[in-house]
């Protein structure tokens, strides 16, 4: 009950003209960025981060939250219409979305994805309302030892879950951790690893690093695809998007099922919207559907779209309550929060209730606003997909330059973006995930502080991590996560060498 009262209070914060405008602005931008093939929510949020500097922290994060949310809606557009997923979670949407569009029902496929996203998001938000504050209360019992163990697990599990090669995920996590050590030592207040550069004394600026690592690197990669995107010629009208009562009945139960599973996956540190879409689709295969999944079934679209939006909502629980993002995009949101002086964690709900509950309430609004806008703009968004990649490349490239400059007010930001972009591109070509690096850059300073405090308490003995029950469980999970990919890789290699013989 108390949570619902606080949610009502949150609505009084969120329902200001400025915050509603920010949510609408974020929703429109998110839909457009999400609909553009190949950009993705991580690059989208990173590229648009500098725009929020005009607002106060609450409004800024409402806009970003709305943008992130709308991105999930938008990602389905290119997946359904041109078989190119707008972002990772939309990969599964292509399986049924594109065949349904080919059957002559592209409008209904888009509207199915919008309604399923709305249902999934709504379920996710309701669960977050109740789990978020409980997680925060649990988090209040966490000392430096438990926090260090939890952060270690979060960073490792994300590295393990992403990409084809989990070892590469751990490598990029370690790279991010080292980048975060450059600049000021937060515990002792002395500079380190600045290599004689006065710029590096302040550390590597976060926003240009992220813009470069995920935005600029993506533009470099897009050059290869610039001639290959199939053009869209057909136009859609509102009447083409209407669902029948029977269609609605078909999408309802898969959306509810996927909403519940997706939220649970979103709350787990490390498992993001992409994982949720995969799991929900696989789970839906166990149920009967009017058409087989993979042939343009409404149930298939509903399951993955509801699942990924529910996970996006669920990820806000550990993000706000424990300060642990569930994905690379969550890490950028966390970085944004920190830049505005807000430290997500157990005390956020107590010290900044207006912010925490205002954000949660605004996500409800964002869900509704995005559903309405996405329906209204379906014909326009379809036109967005006709923008050739050849035009998108120079525009995004220049946004990277202007955005990086604007957050640092110096060409140093552009230089960082440029270097990070090249490294990010090389990493992408070599199949090293970049989002784990971003996540580690955000989490590493908090992790280091807690780790050093824990070792100070124990006098240097790592046994302290196994003496307390919570940290002991977390450490066991960490070692399992760390060992599994190595064993898996070795096993694979042994099998392939035996096969070769």
């Amino acid at each position: 009950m108390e949570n619902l009262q606080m949610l009502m209070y949150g609505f009084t914060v969120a329902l200001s003209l400025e915050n509603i405008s920010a949510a609408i602005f974020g929703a429109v931008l998110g839909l457009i960025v999400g609909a553009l093939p190949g950009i993705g929510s991580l690059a989208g949020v990173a590229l648009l981060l500098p725009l929020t500097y005009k607002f106060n922290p609450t409004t800024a994060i409402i806009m970003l939250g709305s943008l992130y949310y709308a991105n999930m809606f938008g990602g389905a557009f290119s997946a359904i219409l041109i078989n190119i997923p707008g972002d990772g979670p939309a990969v599964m949407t292509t399986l049924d979305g594109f065949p349904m569009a080919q059957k002559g029902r592209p409008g209904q496929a888009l509207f199915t994805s919008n309604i399923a996203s709305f249902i999934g998001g709504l379920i996710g938000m309701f669960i977050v309302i109740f789990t978020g504050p409980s997680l925060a209360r649990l988090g209040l019992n966490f000392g430096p030892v438990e926090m260090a163990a939890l952060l270690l697990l979060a960073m490792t599990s994300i590295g393990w879950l992403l990409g084809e090669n989990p070892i590469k995920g751990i490598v990029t996590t370690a790279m991010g951790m080292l980048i975060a050590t450059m600049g000021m030592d937060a515990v002792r207040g002395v500079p380190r690893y600045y290599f004689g550069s006065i710029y590096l004394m302040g550390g590597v600026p976060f926003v240009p690093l992220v813009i470069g690592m995920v935005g600029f690197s993506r533009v470099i990669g897009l050059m290869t695809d610039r001639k290959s995107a199939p053009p869209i010629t057909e136009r859609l009208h509102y009447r083409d998007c209407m669902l029948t009562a029977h269609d609605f009945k078909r999408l309802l139960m898969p959306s509810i099922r996927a909403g519940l599973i997706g939220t649970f996956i979103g709350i787990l540190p490390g498992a993001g919207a992409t994982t949720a879409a995969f799991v929900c689709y696989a789970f839906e295969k166990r149920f009967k559907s009017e058409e087989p999944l993979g042939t343009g079934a409404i149930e298939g679209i509903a399951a993955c779209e509801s699942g990924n939006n529910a996970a996006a909502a669920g990820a806000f629980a550990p993000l706000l309550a424990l300060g642990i993002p569930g994905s690379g995009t969550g890490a950028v949101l966390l970085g944004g929060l920190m830049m505005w002086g807000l430290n997500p964690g157990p005390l956020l709900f107590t010290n900044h209730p207006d912010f925490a509950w205002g954000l949660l309430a605004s996500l409800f609004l964002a869900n509704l606003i995005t559903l309405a806008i996405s329906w209204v703009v379906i014909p326009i968004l379809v036109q967005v997909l006709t923008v050739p990649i050849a035009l998108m490349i120079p525009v995004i490239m220049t946004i990277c330059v202007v955005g990086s400059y604007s957050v640092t007010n110096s060409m140093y930001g552009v230089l960082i973006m440029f270097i990070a972009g090249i490294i990010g591109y090389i990493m992408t070509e070599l199949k090293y995930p970049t989002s784990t690096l971003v996540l580690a850059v955000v989490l590493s300073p908090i992790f280091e502080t807690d780790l050093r405090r824990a070792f100070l308490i124990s006098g240097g003995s790592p046994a302290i991590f196994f003496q307390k029950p919570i940290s002991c469980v977390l450490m066991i999970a960490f070692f399992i996560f760390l060992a599994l990919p190595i064993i898996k890789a070795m096993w694979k290699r042994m099998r392939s060498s035996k096969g070769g013989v």
Partner: protein
Amino acid sequence: MRRLAKYVFPVCLIIIGIVFAVLGVFEFGFWDEAKGPMGGFYPTLVSILLIAMSIVCLTLARDDKDPKFPVQNLLVILAVLAIFCCTFLIGMFPSIFLCLVIWLRKIEKYSWRFSVIFALVTVLVFYGVFGKWLAISFPNGLLGDLIFG
């Protein structure tokens, strides 16, 4: 050379890891009996992890697919490098305008008219959003400083 990238990258990471570990232990300090963990404590531990995992990546690199690194992708890097250098001479927005026009005309083969109008509109939107709305002062370059003082 492109084939070697999958080996060169982990080798670079191993070198970086060694540099961070050495600096961590010898310059910033690893452990102090009275003060506990020093500035080099955490980076050294992470460096050891990075070195170990990079060695695993290096040993497994043989099984990885060869990266492509298409030459045309270099154009984006060169374009941003050109904007970066030109900004010091003619300022950021004129550099972006020139880059966009040349890119659209020479690489994408759009007409001069379309290229100029598209570049102009893009730069005006950037100027409106970043220069006016967010009130960020962008560099004018040597030429701009000479003209505007």
